[in-house]
């Protein structure tokens, strides 16, 4: 006989609300339904009541981890409406910030995944490393979470001493290469808890149009930094890790390998940081009538902003945000089908869900 188990809206692993109603038979999940919207904030609508400076600050609050990525995408869309091209130094600083944010996000996720695997010492190691990433972000921007770095036509703060940041990145890379990466790629605990569970096949991944590490862990080599490069990414050399298995372990491996690729990009960007201005210097803009669209590869996958403006207006006419978790989350239904009930918290966490983004 089947029975229903409601999980949430308070998630057993993450302190953000969503609900998963699972139909189970014994300990096996037969089907599941997802419910979101418990903390829906109406940010898109609020943006229509803000001018461009206020709207940037608002968009920084879409996500607590990818705050830089959201303002980057929003500013890139607005740059299309104001005919602004950020100078090369700004493009490099944007890459540096974006990759530090990816490190922050992946290491935080690794800590949570470790905790769910019953690997509590690893959780503490990951969070210690995460603190160091946040120290670097604070050294650049002055802030740990909402960095206020992006503006139309560039960034608000320069990196005055790239060598000191480079030293911090190298120390961090060494620590991750010694601890996090080997444990996640070779440990028996990680393998036994993650291999073969929460599988999303390549066909399902295509049907659900998933993005980011979840797509790459199902064998889809998609990454906007390569496919539609922006900022200074065309000048960076890096690989896009892809795993074919589609299980939780594949997602773990993709993120672990991406940590090392991010370090590789950071080293290049800091070493080659070009001289010059870090913004165009303009602070009054003439927005043209129309819609501009921008996409960026966030730690969790593609973020897309469509921004509409009417000439002469102080506020955007429409802002639409498509966040990566909104694209990935429906696929959880396929991942938990046939899974053991006890594995479902880890399976859900394996997509690195951001409910803040989803309830934008």
């Amino acid at each position, binding site marked *: 006989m089947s029975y229903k188990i409601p999980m949430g809206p308070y998630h057993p692993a993450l302190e953000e609300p969503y609900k998963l109603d699972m139909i189970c038979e014994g300990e096996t999940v037969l089907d599941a339904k997802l419910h979101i919207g418990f903390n829906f904030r109406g940010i898109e609508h609020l943006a229509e009541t803000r001018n461009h400076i206020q709207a940037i600050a608002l968009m920084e609050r879409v996500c607590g981890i990818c705050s830089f990525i959201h303002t980057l995408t929003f500013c890139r869309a607005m740059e299309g409406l104001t005919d602004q091209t950020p100078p090369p130094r700004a493009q490099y600083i944007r890459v540096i910030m974006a990759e530090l944010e990816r490190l922050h996000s992946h290491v935080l996720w690794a800590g949570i995944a470790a905790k769910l695997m019953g690997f509590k010492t690893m959780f503490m190691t990951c969070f210690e490393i995460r603190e160091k990433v946040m120290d670097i972000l604070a050294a650049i921007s002055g802030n740990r979470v909402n960095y206020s770095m992006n503006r139309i036509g560039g960034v608000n703060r320069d990196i005055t001493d790239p060598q000191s940041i480079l030293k911090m990145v190298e120390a961090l890379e060494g620590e991750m290469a010694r601890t996090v990466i080997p444990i996640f790629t070779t440990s028996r605990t990680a393998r036994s808890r993650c291999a073969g569970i929460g599988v999303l096949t390549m066909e399902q991944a295509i049907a659900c149009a998933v993005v980011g590490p979840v797509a790459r862990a199902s064998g889809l080599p*998609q990454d906007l930094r390569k496919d539609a490069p922006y900022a200074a990414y065309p000048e960076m050399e890096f690989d896009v890790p892809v795993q074919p298995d589609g299980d939780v372990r594949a997602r773990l491996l993709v993120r672990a390998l991406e940590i090392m690729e991010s370090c590789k990009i950071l080293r290049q960007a800091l070493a080659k940081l070009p001289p010059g201005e870090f913004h165009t210097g303009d602070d009054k803009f003439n927005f043209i009538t129309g819609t501009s669209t921008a996409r960026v590869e966030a730690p969790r996958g593609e973020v897309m902003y469509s921004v509409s403006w009417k000439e002469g207006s102080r506020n955007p006419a429409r802002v639409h945000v498509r966040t990566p978790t909104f694209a990935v989350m429906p696929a959880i239904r396929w991942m938990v089908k046939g899974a053991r009930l006890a594995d479902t918290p880890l399976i859900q966490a394996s997509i690195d869900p951001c409910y803040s983004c989803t309830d934008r």
Partner: protein
Amino acid sequence: MTPLESIPEKLGTTESWTDKGGVHWLALEAAKVRELAKAMNEIRARFITITAYQLPKDEGFRLEYHWDLNGQLLGFSFQLAGKSIESIFDFTEAADWIEREIHEEYGIDFTGREYEPLLLRQGETMGVNLRDAVAAIKEKI
């Protein structure tokens, strides 16, 4: 012929792609939306999202559909005569949530599918234009 070039012919339109702001746009009638979804599946384009725009006065709505084809961003804009358009959910599973969200926020009906609440809770009124509802509340205040 590249997959991109084959699309206008597949959809039986004489329109051609125009590039604007890094997006390849193709003008189509709203009646072609399901054919479009099928054609996008055939060329293995990845569905991204639908963006709804409420037009001023009583001009109705515009929906913009976006797909990705190997890093190229494809856009299709549909002006709705009324408040409905055919659903593509049966061809494009990924469109499920965004169709439900637009239905709940703008009251646009994606015909040929059933709705369950997504952002709203069970029992709450669905298919209402919340934008108009908020404007009406603001007027009262």
